[in-house]
Protein backbone atom coordinates (compact mmCIF):
# COMPACT_ATOMS: atom_id res chain seq x y z
CA UNK A 1 0.00 0.00 0.00
CA UNK A 2 2.66 2.50 1.10
CA UNK A 3 6.12 2.24 -0.33
CA UNK A 4 9.25 4.31 0.14
CA UNK A 5 12.14 3.64 -2.17
CA UNK A 6 15.64 5.08 -2.01
CA UNK A 7 14.48 8.02 0.10
CA UNK A 8 17.14 10.47 1.24
CA UNK A 9 16.57 13.67 3.17
CA UNK A 10 18.65 16.54 4.46
CA UNK A 11 18.33 19.27 7.05
CA UNK A 12 20.52 21.92 5.53
CA UNK A 13 23.75 20.13 4.70
CA UNK A 14 23.21 17.30 7.17
CA UNK A 15 21.95 14.15 5.60
CA UNK A 16 19.41 12.64 8.00
CA UNK A 17 18.07 9.76 5.86
CA UNK A 18 20.25 7.60 3.63
CA UNK A 19 18.41 5.77 0.89
CA UNK A 20 15.58 4.30 2.91
CA UNK A 21 13.44 1.48 1.46
CA UNK A 22 10.30 0.68 3.35
CA UNK A 23 7.04 -1.09 2.56
CA UNK A 24 3.75 -1.24 4.41
CA UNK A 25 1.22 -3.71 3.04
CA UNK A 26 -2.55 -3.28 3.39
CA UNK A 27 -3.74 -4.28 6.86
CA UNK A 28 -0.21 -4.59 8.18
CA UNK A 29 1.21 -3.03 11.32
CA UNK A 30 4.79 -2.09 10.57
CA UNK A 31 7.10 -0.66 13.21
CA UNK A 32 9.97 1.68 12.62
CA UNK A 33 12.22 1.43 15.61
CA UNK A 34 15.32 3.38 16.41
CA UNK A 35 16.98 5.58 18.99
CA UNK A 36 16.58 9.32 19.33
CA UNK A 37 17.62 11.21 16.20
CA UNK A 38 17.79 8.04 14.12
CA UNK A 39 15.42 9.65 11.59
CA UNK A 40 12.07 8.13 12.60
CA UNK A 41 10.16 11.39 12.85
CA UNK A 42 11.75 12.68 9.67
CA UNK A 43 10.52 9.59 7.85
CA UNK A 44 7.02 10.13 9.21
CA UNK A 45 7.07 13.81 8.27
CA UNK A 46 8.23 12.90 4.77
CA UNK A 47 5.36 10.48 4.29
CA UNK A 48 2.87 13.07 5.58
CA UNK A 49 4.37 15.73 3.33
CA UNK A 50 5.52 18.07 6.10
CA UNK A 51 9.05 17.73 4.79
CA UNK A 52 10.37 17.07 1.29
CA UNK A 53 12.80 14.30 0.40
CA UNK A 54 15.96 15.22 -1.48
CA UNK A 55 15.64 12.11 -3.61
CA UNK A 56 13.66 8.91 -3.85
CA UNK A 57 9.97 8.17 -4.26
CA UNK A 58 6.97 7.64 -2.04
CA UNK A 59 3.98 5.82 -3.49
CA UNK A 60 0.54 5.11 -2.09
CA UNK A 61 -1.27 2.27 -3.86
CA UNK A 62 1.16 2.64 -6.74
CA UNK A 63 0.65 6.40 -7.20
CA UNK A 64 3.59 8.72 -6.61
CA UNK A 65 2.72 11.13 -3.78
CA UNK A 66 6.16 12.59 -3.06
CA UNK A 67 5.35 15.88 -4.76
CA UNK A 68 1.91 16.40 -3.23
CA UNK A 69 1.04 18.83 -0.45
CA UNK A 70 0.03 17.55 2.98
CA UNK A 71 -3.67 18.36 2.48
CA UNK A 72 -3.69 16.32 -0.76
CA UNK A 73 -2.04 13.38 0.99
CA UNK A 74 -4.59 13.58 3.80
CA UNK A 75 -7.41 13.33 1.31
CA UNK A 76 -5.69 10.38 -0.33
CA UNK A 77 -5.78 8.60 3.01
CA UNK A 78 -2.61 9.32 4.97
CA UNK A 79 -3.13 10.53 8.53
CA UNK A 80 -0.24 11.42 10.78
CA UNK A 81 -0.57 11.47 14.55
CA UNK A 82 2.45 13.64 15.28
CA UNK A 83 4.81 12.99 18.17
CA UNK A 84 4.45 14.81 21.43
CA UNK A 85 0.71 14.24 21.96
CA UNK A 86 -0.28 17.28 19.96
CA UNK A 87 -3.82 18.37 20.61
CA UNK A 88 -5.59 21.70 20.32
CA UNK A 89 -5.24 22.36 24.03
CA UNK A 90 -7.83 25.15 24.22
CA UNK A 91 -10.45 23.15 22.36
CA UNK A 92 -12.65 20.41 23.76
CA UNK A 93 -12.20 16.71 23.03
CA UNK A 94 -15.22 16.82 20.75
CA UNK A 95 -13.86 19.80 18.81
CA UNK A 96 -10.52 18.06 18.43
CA UNK A 97 -12.19 15.00 16.95
CA UNK A 98 -14.32 17.14 14.65
CA UNK A 99 -11.19 18.86 13.37
CA UNK A 100 -9.82 15.44 12.50
CA UNK A 101 -12.57 15.00 9.93
CA UNK A 102 -11.63 18.32 8.36
CA UNK A 103 -10.99 17.17 4.81
CA UNK A 104 -13.89 14.72 4.60
CA UNK A 105 -16.72 15.38 2.21
CA UNK A 106 -19.16 12.93 3.83
CA UNK A 107 -20.31 15.41 6.49
CA UNK A 108 -23.27 13.32 7.67
CA UNK A 109 -21.09 10.35 8.51
CA UNK A 110 -18.97 12.31 10.94
CA UNK A 111 -21.32 12.03 13.92
CA UNK A 112 -21.53 8.20 13.75
CA UNK A 113 -17.73 8.11 13.55
CA UNK A 114 -17.41 10.33 16.59
CA UNK A 115 -19.77 7.98 18.43
CA UNK A 116 -17.62 5.06 17.30
CA UNK A 117 -14.52 6.81 18.70
CA UNK A 118 -16.28 7.36 22.02
CA UNK A 119 -17.22 3.68 22.07
CA UNK A 120 -13.61 2.76 21.43
CA UNK A 121 -12.23 5.27 23.95
CA UNK A 122 -14.97 5.49 26.62
CA UNK A 123 -12.92 7.91 28.70
CA UNK A 124 -12.94 10.44 25.88
CA UNK A 125 -16.71 10.09 25.64
CA UNK A 126 -17.10 10.91 29.32
CA UNK A 127 -14.96 13.99 28.86
CA UNK A 128 -16.10 15.11 25.45
CA UNK A 129 -16.64 18.68 26.62
CA UNK A 130 -13.44 18.97 28.61
CA UNK A 131 -10.57 21.04 27.26
CA UNK A 132 -8.05 18.66 25.73
CA UNK A 133 -5.15 20.55 27.33
CA UNK A 134 -6.45 19.79 30.83
CA UNK A 135 -6.31 16.02 30.34
CA UNK A 136 -3.55 13.62 31.32
CA UNK A 137 -0.77 12.70 28.90
CA UNK A 138 -2.27 9.31 28.12
CA UNK A 139 -5.70 10.77 27.49
CA UNK A 140 -4.24 13.43 25.22
CA UNK A 141 -2.53 10.70 23.21
CA UNK A 142 -5.89 8.93 22.91
CA UNK A 143 -7.43 12.19 21.67
CA UNK A 144 -4.63 12.50 19.11
CA UNK A 145 -5.09 8.92 17.88
CA UNK A 146 -8.88 9.26 17.73
CA UNK A 147 -8.49 12.52 15.83
CA UNK A 148 -6.19 10.76 13.36
CA UNK A 149 -8.77 8.01 12.88
CA UNK A 150 -11.50 10.59 12.26
CA UNK A 151 -9.77 11.34 8.96
CA UNK A 152 -10.76 7.79 7.87
CA UNK A 153 -7.21 7.07 6.74
CA UNK A 154 -6.08 4.18 4.62
CA UNK A 155 -2.78 4.32 6.41
CA UNK A 156 -2.35 5.67 9.93
CA UNK A 157 1.06 7.02 10.89
CA UNK A 158 1.72 6.96 14.63
CA UNK A 159 4.81 8.89 15.63
CA UNK A 160 6.10 7.88 19.09
CA UNK A 161 2.69 7.41 20.70
CA UNK A 162 4.19 6.11 23.96
CA UNK A 163 6.88 8.75 24.45
CA UNK A 164 6.97 9.91 28.06
CA UNK A 165 3.97 7.88 29.17
CA UNK A 166 3.67 5.62 32.23
CA UNK A 167 4.03 1.84 31.58
CA UNK A 168 0.35 1.18 32.28
CA UNK A 169 -0.62 3.79 29.67
CA UNK A 170 1.86 2.29 27.22
CA UNK A 171 0.02 -1.04 27.61
CA UNK A 172 -3.25 0.71 26.92
CA UNK A 173 -1.87 2.22 23.73
CA UNK A 174 -0.49 -1.16 22.62
CA UNK A 175 -3.93 -2.63 23.14
CA UNK A 176 -5.46 0.15 21.07
CA UNK A 177 -3.01 -0.39 18.21
CA UNK A 178 -3.66 -4.15 18.28
CA UNK A 179 -7.40 -3.57 18.23
CA UNK A 180 -7.05 -1.24 15.23
CA UNK A 181 -4.90 -3.88 13.51
CA UNK A 182 -7.59 -6.53 14.10
CA UNK A 183 -10.10 -4.16 12.50
CA UNK A 184 -7.88 -4.13 9.41
CA UNK A 185 -6.23 -0.70 9.77
CA UNK A 186 -2.87 -0.25 8.08
CA UNK A 187 -0.45 1.28 10.55
CA UNK A 188 3.11 2.55 10.44
CA UNK A 189 4.36 2.98 13.98
CA UNK A 190 7.55 4.87 14.79
CA UNK A 191 8.75 3.90 18.26
CA UNK A 192 11.74 4.22 20.51
CA UNK A 193 10.17 1.68 22.81
CA UNK A 194 11.26 -1.39 20.83
CA UNK A 195 9.67 -3.86 23.22
CA UNK A 196 6.24 -2.31 22.74
CA UNK A 197 6.68 -1.89 19.00
CA UNK A 198 7.78 -5.48 18.41
CA UNK A 199 4.87 -6.71 20.47
CA UNK A 200 2.24 -5.06 18.27
CA UNK A 201 3.89 -5.09 14.84
CA UNK A 202 3.87 -7.83 12.25
CA UNK A 203 7.09 -6.55 10.70
CA UNK A 204 9.65 -3.99 11.74
CA UNK A 205 12.51 -1.92 10.41
CA UNK A 206 15.41 -0.78 12.55
CA UNK A 207 16.63 2.69 11.77
CA UNK A 208 20.10 3.74 12.92
CA UNK A 209 21.85 6.98 11.95
CA UNK A 210 19.44 7.55 9.07
CA UNK A 211 19.74 4.13 7.44
CA UNK A 212 17.83 0.86 7.76
CA UNK A 213 20.18 -1.43 9.68
CA UNK A 214 17.89 -4.44 10.09
CA UNK A 215 14.41 -5.61 9.18
CA UNK A 216 12.16 -8.60 9.62
CA UNK A 217 9.50 -10.12 11.84
CA UNK A 218 9.60 -9.35 15.54
CA UNK A 219 10.95 -12.85 16.22
CA UNK A 220 13.81 -12.43 13.76
CA UNK A 221 14.68 -9.03 15.14
CA UNK A 222 14.54 -10.07 18.77
CA UNK A 223 16.94 -12.89 17.92
CA UNK A 224 19.30 -10.60 16.03
CA UNK A 225 22.33 -9.74 18.18
CA UNK A 226 22.50 -6.15 16.85
CA UNK A 227 18.95 -5.39 17.88
CA UNK A 228 19.20 -7.23 21.14
CA UNK A 229 22.27 -5.28 22.07
CA UNK A 230 20.84 -1.95 21.02
CA UNK A 231 17.35 -2.17 22.41
CA UNK A 232 17.05 -4.87 24.98
CA UNK A 233 20.06 -4.03 27.09
CA UNK A 234 21.74 -7.32 26.22
CA UNK A 235 25.13 -5.65 26.57
CA UNK A 236 24.82 -5.96 30.35
CA UNK A 237 25.36 -9.68 29.96
CA UNK A 238 28.91 -8.96 28.76
CA UNK A 239 29.93 -7.80 32.20
Amino acid at each position, binding site marked *: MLELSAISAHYGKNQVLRSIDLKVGAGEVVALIGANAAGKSTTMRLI*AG*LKRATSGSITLDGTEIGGL*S*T*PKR*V*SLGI*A*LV*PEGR*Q*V*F*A*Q*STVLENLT*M*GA*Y*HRADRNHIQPDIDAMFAMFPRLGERRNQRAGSMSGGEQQMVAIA*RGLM*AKPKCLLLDEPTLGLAPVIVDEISATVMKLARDGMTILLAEQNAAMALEVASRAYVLAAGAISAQGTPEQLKASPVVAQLYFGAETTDA
Partner: protein
Amino acid sequence: MKALWFLIPLYLLPLVVKSDTMLTVLIFTFLLSILAVGFNIVFGGAGQLTMFHAAAFGIGSYATFLSMLHFGLPFWLGYLVAVVVVVLVSIVIGWICFKFRLKEFYFAVVTMAFAELCRLIALNWTSVTNGTLGMLVLEKPTLWLPRSGIVKIEQTAAWYFLTLVSLTVVLAFSALLMRSWIGRNFSAIRLNEDLAQTLGIDTFRYKLLAFTISNVIASFAGALYGFYTGFIEPSYLSVTQSLDAIAMVLLGGVSTILGPVVGSMVLTSLPHLIELPAELRVAVYGMILILVILLMPRGIVGLAAGLLKRRAHAS
Protein backbone atom coordinates in the same frame (compact mmCIF):
# COMPACT_ATOMS: atom_id res chain seq x y z
CA MET B 1 -22.93 38.46 17.57
CA LYS B 2 -23.62 39.41 21.21
CA ALA B 3 -20.73 41.82 20.87
CA LEU B 4 -22.78 44.02 18.57
CA TRP B 5 -25.22 44.94 21.37
CA PHE B 6 -22.33 46.86 22.86
CA LEU B 7 -22.55 49.30 19.96
CA ILE B 8 -26.23 50.21 20.47
CA PRO B 9 -25.64 52.93 23.09
CA LEU B 10 -23.24 54.53 20.62
CA TYR B 11 -26.08 54.92 18.11
CA LEU B 12 -28.12 56.78 20.73
CA LEU B 13 -25.25 58.90 22.00
CA PRO B 14 -25.67 61.86 19.58
CA LEU B 15 -29.18 62.38 20.98
CA VAL B 16 -27.59 63.25 24.31
CA VAL B 17 -24.13 64.51 23.43
CA LYS B 18 -24.19 67.61 21.26
CA SER B 19 -20.51 68.48 21.59
CA ASP B 20 -18.70 68.16 18.28
CA THR B 21 -15.39 67.55 20.07
CA MET B 22 -16.75 64.48 21.80
CA LEU B 23 -18.23 63.11 18.56
CA THR B 24 -14.98 63.84 16.70
CA VAL B 25 -12.99 61.86 19.25
CA LEU B 26 -15.42 58.99 18.79
CA ILE B 27 -15.16 59.16 14.98
CA PHE B 28 -11.39 58.71 15.29
CA THR B 29 -12.03 55.88 17.74
CA PHE B 30 -14.34 54.11 15.28
CA LEU B 31 -11.90 54.53 12.39
CA LEU B 32 -8.97 53.14 14.35
CA SER B 33 -11.27 50.39 15.70
CA ILE B 34 -11.86 49.25 12.12
CA LEU B 35 -8.10 49.08 11.59
CA ALA B 36 -7.68 47.13 14.84
CA VAL B 37 -10.54 44.71 14.01
CA GLY B 38 -8.80 43.97 10.71
CA PHE B 39 -5.48 43.36 12.42
CA ASN B 40 -7.18 41.07 14.93
CA ILE B 41 -8.36 38.78 12.12
CA VAL B 42 -4.85 37.96 10.95
CA PHE B 43 -3.18 38.13 14.39
CA GLY B 44 -5.87 37.09 16.86
CA GLY B 45 -7.40 34.74 14.29
CA ALA B 46 -4.64 33.10 12.32
CA GLY B 47 -1.80 34.00 14.69
CA GLN B 48 0.32 35.86 12.16
CA LEU B 49 1.97 39.00 13.55
CA THR B 50 1.78 41.30 10.54
CA MET B 51 3.25 44.80 10.48
CA PHE B 52 1.70 45.64 7.15
CA HIS B 53 -1.71 46.89 8.26
CA ALA B 54 -0.63 50.57 8.44
CA ALA B 55 0.64 50.30 4.87
CA ALA B 56 -2.71 48.83 3.79
CA PHE B 57 -4.40 51.68 5.68
CA GLY B 58 -2.27 54.21 3.79
CA ILE B 59 -2.68 52.52 0.43
CA GLY B 60 -6.44 52.60 1.06
CA SER B 61 -6.48 56.37 1.42
CA TYR B 62 -3.96 57.13 -1.36
CA ALA B 63 -5.45 54.76 -3.93
CA THR B 64 -9.02 55.88 -3.26
CA PHE B 65 -8.16 59.55 -3.55
CA LEU B 66 -5.83 59.19 -6.54
CA SER B 67 -8.34 57.18 -8.56
CA MET B 68 -10.99 59.81 -7.79
CA LEU B 69 -8.59 62.55 -8.84
CA HIS B 70 -7.41 60.94 -12.06
CA PHE B 71 -10.40 58.93 -13.22
CA GLY B 72 -13.12 61.14 -11.79
CA LEU B 73 -14.66 58.26 -9.86
CA PRO B 74 -17.01 58.76 -6.92
CA PHE B 75 -15.66 57.79 -3.47
CA TRP B 76 -17.05 54.26 -3.33
CA LEU B 77 -15.83 53.31 -6.80
CA GLY B 78 -12.48 54.88 -5.96
CA TYR B 79 -12.36 52.70 -2.88
CA LEU B 80 -13.11 49.67 -5.05
CA VAL B 81 -9.94 50.45 -7.02
CA ALA B 82 -8.08 50.65 -3.70
CA VAL B 83 -9.44 47.21 -2.75
CA VAL B 84 -8.10 45.74 -5.97
CA VAL B 85 -4.68 47.31 -5.32
CA VAL B 86 -4.59 46.11 -1.71
CA VAL B 87 -5.67 42.58 -2.65
CA LEU B 88 -2.94 42.35 -5.29
CA VAL B 89 -0.27 43.76 -2.96
CA SER B 90 -1.40 41.42 -0.15
CA ILE B 91 -1.28 38.38 -2.39
CA VAL B 92 2.22 39.20 -3.61
CA ILE B 93 3.63 39.95 -0.15
CA GLY B 94 1.71 37.13 1.53
CA TRP B 95 2.79 34.70 -1.17
CA ILE B 96 6.46 35.60 -0.64
CA CYS B 97 6.24 35.42 3.17
CA PHE B 98 4.21 32.23 3.42
CA LYS B 99 6.00 30.37 0.61
CA PHE B 100 9.23 30.93 2.48
CA ARG B 101 7.47 29.83 5.67
CA LEU B 102 8.26 33.01 7.53
CA LYS B 103 6.89 32.88 11.04
CA GLU B 104 6.47 35.09 14.08
CA PHE B 105 9.40 37.51 14.34
CA TYR B 106 10.58 36.90 10.77
CA PHE B 107 7.13 37.45 9.33
CA ALA B 108 6.79 40.66 11.36
CA VAL B 109 10.16 41.99 10.18
CA VAL B 110 9.60 41.17 6.51
CA THR B 111 6.07 42.64 6.46
CA MET B 112 7.46 45.71 8.23
CA ALA B 113 10.10 46.05 5.51
CA PHE B 114 7.42 45.87 2.82
CA ALA B 115 5.37 48.46 4.72
CA GLU B 116 8.40 50.77 4.86
CA LEU B 117 8.91 50.24 1.15
CA CYS B 118 5.33 51.40 0.53
CA ARG B 119 5.84 54.40 2.81
CA LEU B 120 9.01 55.38 0.97
CA ILE B 121 7.17 55.18 -2.34
CA ALA B 122 4.44 57.47 -0.97
CA LEU B 123 7.14 59.79 0.34
CA ASN B 124 9.32 59.97 -2.77
CA TRP B 125 6.95 59.60 -5.70
CA THR B 126 6.35 63.34 -5.47
CA SER B 127 4.73 63.81 -8.85
CA VAL B 128 1.87 61.53 -7.85
CA THR B 129 1.67 61.70 -4.06
CA ASN B 130 3.01 65.21 -3.46
CA GLY B 131 5.59 63.59 -1.15
CA THR B 132 5.99 64.70 2.43
CA LEU B 133 3.62 67.65 1.95
CA GLY B 134 0.74 65.23 1.58
CA MET B 135 -2.48 65.86 -0.29
CA LEU B 136 -5.48 67.94 0.61
CA VAL B 137 -8.74 66.08 0.13
CA LEU B 138 -11.61 68.44 -0.49
CA GLU B 139 -14.00 65.83 -1.90
CA LYS B 140 -16.39 64.14 0.48
CA PRO B 141 -17.94 60.68 0.19
CA THR B 142 -21.55 60.64 -0.89
CA LEU B 143 -24.23 58.17 0.08
CA TRP B 144 -27.61 57.43 -1.38
CA LEU B 145 -30.21 57.31 1.37
CA PRO B 146 -33.88 56.52 1.00
CA ARG B 147 -36.04 59.66 1.13
CA SER B 148 -33.14 62.14 1.14
CA GLY B 149 -31.46 60.94 -2.06
CA ILE B 150 -27.74 61.54 -2.49
CA VAL B 151 -26.18 62.96 0.64
CA LYS B 152 -22.71 64.37 1.03
CA ILE B 153 -21.00 63.20 4.21
CA GLU B 154 -19.78 66.50 5.59
CA GLN B 155 -21.19 67.28 8.99
CA THR B 156 -19.75 65.72 12.11
CA ALA B 157 -23.01 63.91 12.83
CA ALA B 158 -23.04 62.40 9.33
CA TRP B 159 -19.45 61.20 9.73
CA TYR B 160 -20.31 59.86 13.17
CA PHE B 161 -23.03 57.62 11.76
CA LEU B 162 -21.08 56.64 8.65
CA THR B 163 -18.07 55.49 10.68
CA LEU B 164 -20.23 53.82 13.32
CA VAL B 165 -22.23 51.90 10.71
CA SER B 166 -18.97 50.93 8.98
CA LEU B 167 -17.56 49.67 12.28
CA THR B 168 -20.76 47.71 12.93
CA VAL B 169 -20.58 46.05 9.52
CA VAL B 170 -16.88 45.20 9.88
CA LEU B 171 -17.43 43.87 13.40
CA ALA B 172 -20.38 41.72 12.29
CA PHE B 173 -18.31 40.40 9.40
CA SER B 174 -15.41 39.58 11.71
CA ALA B 175 -17.72 37.83 14.20
CA LEU B 176 -19.32 35.74 11.44
CA LEU B 177 -15.95 34.96 9.88
CA MET B 178 -14.41 33.83 13.17
CA ARG B 179 -17.34 31.54 13.85
CA SER B 180 -17.37 30.04 10.37
CA TRP B 181 -15.27 27.07 9.30
CA ILE B 182 -12.81 29.54 7.82
CA GLY B 183 -12.38 31.09 11.26
CA ARG B 184 -11.94 27.65 12.80
CA ASN B 185 -9.18 26.91 10.29
CA PHE B 186 -7.55 30.21 11.21
CA SER B 187 -7.58 29.22 14.90
CA ALA B 188 -6.21 25.78 14.09
CA ILE B 189 -3.28 27.48 12.36
CA ARG B 190 -2.79 29.89 15.26
CA LEU B 191 -2.89 27.14 17.87
CA ASN B 192 -0.70 24.60 16.08
CA GLU B 193 0.25 25.11 12.48
CA ASP B 194 1.97 21.75 11.97
CA LEU B 195 -1.00 19.94 13.40
CA ALA B 196 -3.41 21.97 11.28
CA GLN B 197 -1.46 20.86 8.24
CA THR B 198 -1.54 17.19 9.19
CA LEU B 199 -5.32 17.46 9.44
CA GLY B 200 -5.40 18.48 5.80
CA ILE B 201 -5.80 22.25 6.20
CA ASP B 202 -4.05 24.14 3.41
CA THR B 203 -2.27 26.48 5.83
CA PHE B 204 -0.64 28.50 3.04
CA ARG B 205 -3.96 29.36 1.47
CA TYR B 206 -5.67 30.23 4.76
CA LYS B 207 -2.81 32.40 5.99
CA LEU B 208 -2.90 34.25 2.69
CA LEU B 209 -6.65 34.66 3.02
CA ALA B 210 -6.41 36.02 6.58
CA PHE B 211 -3.64 38.43 5.57
CA THR B 212 -5.63 39.70 2.59
CA ILE B 213 -8.92 40.13 4.46
CA SER B 214 -7.18 42.00 7.25
CA ASN B 215 -5.45 44.34 4.80
CA VAL B 216 -8.68 45.06 2.92
CA ILE B 217 -10.35 46.04 6.20
CA ALA B 218 -7.36 48.21 7.11
CA SER B 219 -7.59 49.92 3.72
CA PHE B 220 -11.26 50.69 4.37
CA ALA B 221 -10.34 52.40 7.63
CA GLY B 222 -7.62 54.31 5.76
CA ALA B 223 -9.90 55.49 2.97
CA LEU B 224 -12.47 56.83 5.43
CA TYR B 225 -9.75 58.35 7.60
CA GLY B 226 -8.17 60.31 4.75
CA PHE B 227 -11.51 61.73 3.66
CA TYR B 228 -12.60 62.53 7.18
CA THR B 229 -9.45 64.46 8.07
CA GLY B 230 -9.29 65.92 4.54
CA PHE B 231 -5.60 65.20 4.42
CA ILE B 232 -3.45 62.26 3.31
CA GLU B 233 0.24 62.00 4.15
CA PRO B 234 2.96 59.31 4.11
CA SER B 235 2.91 58.95 7.91
CA TYR B 236 -0.36 57.01 7.52
CA LEU B 237 1.83 54.10 6.44
CA SER B 238 4.27 54.40 9.34
CA VAL B 239 5.35 51.71 11.77
CA THR B 240 3.94 53.70 14.69
CA GLN B 241 0.52 53.49 13.08
CA SER B 242 0.88 49.69 12.95
CA LEU B 243 2.09 49.59 16.55
CA ASP B 244 -0.88 51.66 17.73
CA ALA B 245 -3.29 49.11 16.28
CA ILE B 246 -1.32 46.26 17.87
CA ALA B 247 -1.47 48.07 21.22
CA MET B 248 -5.24 48.45 20.89
CA VAL B 249 -5.74 44.77 20.18
CA LEU B 250 -3.47 43.64 23.01
CA LEU B 251 -5.08 46.01 25.50
CA GLY B 252 -8.65 45.22 24.47
CA GLY B 253 -8.12 41.47 24.24
CA VAL B 254 -6.53 39.54 21.43
CA SER B 255 -8.69 36.87 19.73
CA THR B 256 -11.90 38.40 21.13
CA ILE B 257 -14.47 40.03 18.90
CA LEU B 258 -14.91 43.21 20.90
CA GLY B 259 -11.32 43.54 22.14
CA PRO B 260 -10.03 45.78 19.32
CA VAL B 261 -12.95 48.20 19.80
CA VAL B 262 -12.47 48.39 23.56
CA GLY B 263 -8.73 48.87 23.10
CA SER B 264 -9.30 51.63 20.59
CA MET B 265 -11.80 53.31 22.94
CA VAL B 266 -9.25 53.39 25.73
CA LEU B 267 -6.22 54.36 23.67
CA THR B 268 -7.90 56.86 21.32
CA SER B 269 -10.61 58.42 23.47
CA LEU B 270 -8.94 58.58 26.85
CA PRO B 271 -5.88 60.63 25.85
CA HIS B 272 -8.17 63.17 24.21
CA LEU B 273 -10.58 63.32 27.08
CA ILE B 274 -7.90 63.85 29.70
CA GLU B 275 -6.10 66.23 27.33
CA LEU B 276 -2.70 64.66 27.52
CA PRO B 277 0.12 66.46 25.68
CA ALA B 278 1.23 64.56 22.59
CA GLU B 279 4.72 63.77 23.94
CA LEU B 280 3.31 62.27 27.11
CA ARG B 281 0.78 60.22 25.14
CA VAL B 282 3.47 57.96 23.67
CA ALA B 283 4.93 57.38 27.12
CA VAL B 284 1.50 56.57 28.56
CA TYR B 285 0.83 54.18 25.64
CA GLY B 286 4.07 52.37 26.40
CA MET B 287 3.33 52.14 30.13
CA ILE B 288 -0.18 50.82 29.51
CA LEU B 289 1.12 48.25 27.07
CA ILE B 290 3.77 46.93 29.45
CA LEU B 291 1.28 46.71 32.31
CA VAL B 292 -1.28 44.93 30.14
CA ILE B 293 1.16 42.31 28.89
CA LEU B 294 2.39 41.66 32.43
CA LEU B 295 -0.89 41.80 34.33
CA MET B 296 -3.69 40.85 31.96
CA PRO B 297 -2.44 38.96 28.94
CA ARG B 298 -6.00 38.39 27.72
CA GLY B 299 -6.77 42.11 27.69
CA ILE B 300 -9.74 44.00 29.11
CA VAL B 301 -12.34 41.84 27.38
CA GLY B 302 -10.59 38.64 28.47
CA LEU B 303 -10.42 39.89 32.04
CA ALA B 304 -14.07 40.92 32.08
CA ALA B 305 -15.14 37.59 30.60
CA GLY B 306 -13.12 35.79 33.29
CA LEU B 307 -14.72 37.84 36.07
CA LEU B 308 -18.25 37.26 34.71
CA LYS B 309 -17.60 33.54 34.49
CA ARG B 310 -16.36 33.46 38.09
CA ARG B 311 -19.45 35.39 39.23
CA ALA B 312 -21.68 32.92 37.38
CA HIS B 313 -19.90 30.00 39.06
CA ALA B 314 -20.19 31.56 42.51
CA SER B 315 -23.93 32.20 42.29
